[in-house]
């Protein structure tokens, strides 16, 4: 996918600042850098999503997006380090859900990631996580934190099928 040069360090498909008004934080926790945390984060996000009223298809997409993002944080960001945590937060509003996942890794340059949809990369074994996340949520922000890690914010609206 083509990203303008000025967004190379921050992938923003649609700025979310205006959307945060009216959100209520419901989950804000630190998770261990292991695969069990992926299950934990998924369950936590889905519980909130069910309360808001997302349908089965949307719940599946939210679950997948959370899992892909958590795997990125655990595997690529924190590299399974017991000394690093994954910051996991969920906020809800009447018509949407925002999930924030932040690792304590060294960050990455989005513009240098191979495009998983280009012909030469179709048969690569990995590299599709962000693509799937983007397909399943309505807004996505990927930023490098001051500490160097990566923070991903995902927003999904109620009743808007992807």
């Amino acid at each position, binding site marked *: 996918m083509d990203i303008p040069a000025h967004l190379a360090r921050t992938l923003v498909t649609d700025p979310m600042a205006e959307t945060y008004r009216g959100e209520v934080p419901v989950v804000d926790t630190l998770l261990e850098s292991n695969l069990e945390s992926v299950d934990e984060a998924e369950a936590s996000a889905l519980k909130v999503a069910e309360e808001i009223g997302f349908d089965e298809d949307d719940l599946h997409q939210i679950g997948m997006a959370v899992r892909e993002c958590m795997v990125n944080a655990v595997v690529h960001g924190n590299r399974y380090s017991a000394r690093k945590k994954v910051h996991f937060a969920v906020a809800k509003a009447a018509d949407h859900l925002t999930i924030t996942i932040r690792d304590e890794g060294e960050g990455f340059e989005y513009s240098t990631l191979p495009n998983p*949809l280009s012909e030469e990369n179709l048969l690569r074994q990995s590299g599709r996580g962000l693509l799937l996340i983007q397909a399943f949520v309505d807004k996505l922000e990927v930023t490098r934190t001051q500490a160097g890690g990566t923070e991903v914010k995902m927003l999904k609206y109620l009743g808007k099928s992807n």
Partner: protein
Amino acid sequence: MSVKLSTRQVGDVTVIDSAGRITLGEGASVFRDTVRDLTAKGDKKILLNLSDVTYIDSSGIGELVSGFTTVTNHGGVLKLLGLNKRVKDLLQITKLYTVFEVFDDEATAVRSF
């Protein structure tokens, strides 16, 4: 629950019946090992039956691709059978529908080899 695999022969086609979740971790590695063992044995016509697969993540998709590459590099062919809508959607999103031959019916799939 991880993935459970079993194999059977339909003529000269090896069918891998899969059930469960193909995700990062045990599910993905079981699948990878099975395909590797079959190609080492010389199986060249492999049909992966995903009818009872309930969930695949991007790592699982990666293992399908890896299996495809392994079989192809050994001069064989790997095809897919019985994808549910969600797995088909994943193949669409990742453009892998252009790589894999996908079937809904086993008899048709077997005849296609």
